[in-house]
């Protein structure tokens, strides 16, 4: 359905994260099938779809955590399909994990510093970035605690801060808001906007919290069974979902998507 990709990228076709005709099969199950995806700098794209749609697989394939069975990944015009994950990270690609995956034995501060050190920042610079991000994410009070002692929602915030400490050109967030309290969501939306505007980064966000996705996304991609089902502005996608619900006579579709 690929409607207007409301990109704010100003049209420079080189500066994009691009997945072309990407496929990934697991023992006969086609998790991704000929998928095309683009993310510009200075753009927030929400990725939604039912469980098993291939959202996390797409993030894995783009970041090099997993290899596609076919297709190519391009980072600002450079083909990175054969690059290991660490090299892609140093080239400006960061991610967070569904399960957080913070380093439990390291302190919160060390976790965030590592995000900077991993991509070659100096110790001093890493410390400065960590201080800044911990204060933005309201984690400064926990800086010296082992990350494993934090609540799940707080650990996700650490993971987001860790990803941002690398000053990524593109950051891919896999359910970053899971475990956050409803009262934290608007502050988190603000963080995502400031990543786009302040760091001039492209953000891909996967989350079940539709209110958050609708609020922060410039564009939304709907994935189903490894294929792109729809793409458009939040308003267009919301209308599509409502139309689908009306046709199916199942108001449950909207409700279910809202709830996640």
């Amino acid at each position, binding site marked *: 359905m690929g409607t207007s990709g409301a990109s704010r990228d100003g049209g420079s076709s080189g500066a994009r994260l691009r997945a072309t005709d990407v496929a990934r099969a697991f023992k006969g199950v086609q998790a991704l099938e000929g998928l095309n995806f683009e993310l510009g700098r200075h753009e927030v794209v929400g990725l939604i779809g039912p469980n098993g749609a291939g959202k996390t697989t797409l993030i894995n394939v783009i970041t090099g*955590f997993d290899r596609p069975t076919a297709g190519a990944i391009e980072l600002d015009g450079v083909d990175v399909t054969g690059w*290991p*994950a660490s090299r892609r*990270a140093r080239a400006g690609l960061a991610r967070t994990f569904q399960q957080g*995956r913070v380093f439990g034995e*390291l302190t919160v501060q060390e976790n965030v510093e*590592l995000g900077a*050190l991993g991509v070659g920042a100096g110790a001093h610079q890493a410390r400065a970035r960590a201080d800044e991000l911990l204060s933005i994410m309201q984690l400064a009070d926990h800086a010296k605690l*082992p990350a*494993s002692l934090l609540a799940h929602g707080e650990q996700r915030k650490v993971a987001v801060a860790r990803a941002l400490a690398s000053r990524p050109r593109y950051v891919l967030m896999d359910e970053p808001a899971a475990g956050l309290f409803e009262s934290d969501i608007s502050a988190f939306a603000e963080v995502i906007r400031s990543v786009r505007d302040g760091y001039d980064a492209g953000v891909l966000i996967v989350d079940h919290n539709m209110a958050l996705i609708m609020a922060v996304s410039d564009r939304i991609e709907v994935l189903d069974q490894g294929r792109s089902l729809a793409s458009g502005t939040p308003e267009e996608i919301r209308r599509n979902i409502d139309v689908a619900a009306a046709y199916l006579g199942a108001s449950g579709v909207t409700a279910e998507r809202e709830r996640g």
Partner: protein
Amino acid sequence: MQTIQAIIDAIAVGALYALVAVGLALVFGVMRLINFAQGELITAGAYSLYLTRNLPLVVSIVVCFVVCVALAVAIERVAFRPLRGASPATTLVATFAVAFALEAVWLIAFTPQGKTADLLSALNRTATHGSLHLRWVTITELVAGVVLLGGTVLVLNRTTIGLHMRAAASDFRAARLLGVRADRVIRAAFAMSGFLAAVVSLLLTVQQPLVTPTFGLDVTILALVGAVLGGIDRLATATAGGFLIGFISSILGDELPASLSNFAPSFTFLVVILVLLIRPAGLLAPLGQSGVDRV
């Protein structure tokens, strides 16, 4: 007084085994691999001391460090790096293969007859007079143990590569996704284990100057048992376990009646079996809560 003497000696032996255990735990931390070839590093260091016996002592010691560190890094590069991503069983077998291959090299190059490396035998002299009989080597072992353990903790907690190593030990794949270079972290772990092996070579040749192809094997196996006993996934518990096994085997060697002291290793393993029956997860596992030094 004899008991105090035995205890002090046992603490020194424990420190030596603790150093071996630290080397094993460093590599295990980042690779989840028990490196049986660690013992061959110790043997290589000892043979290098034999080969350089006519050179000035300082040169000899420097060569020993260079040999151990270079061999450790070379083993990783040649034998383990191509197996990155292979199953743990495969890499475990590979460490056996490397150990046996190197042992064969020692046999061919140096024959089964022991070679004498007694450069540091002056350390066998008594340091104290009176009823307590302290040798310099005992003091050296204690100091080396404390300094190197402290140094290892400092490197892990205060340097960038140390932070990388701790992150890799915590979640290797996530660390790589942050840009941490797997090769560099693993090489650092092997280099550090090589450095520790060189120190063990130096100290061990003081006590047993006769270097044979299996010189480093016994101490490594026993230290490994100790590390597993304490909990090899944490530096602190592995170190404590290594220390404990050295301590126990030294005490048993001293205190068992002469007719039984040949069987000291058997008694040590008896203790090990009993401990693992009671605490299969490792004797010290619940104590290692400090968290920061897991590697």
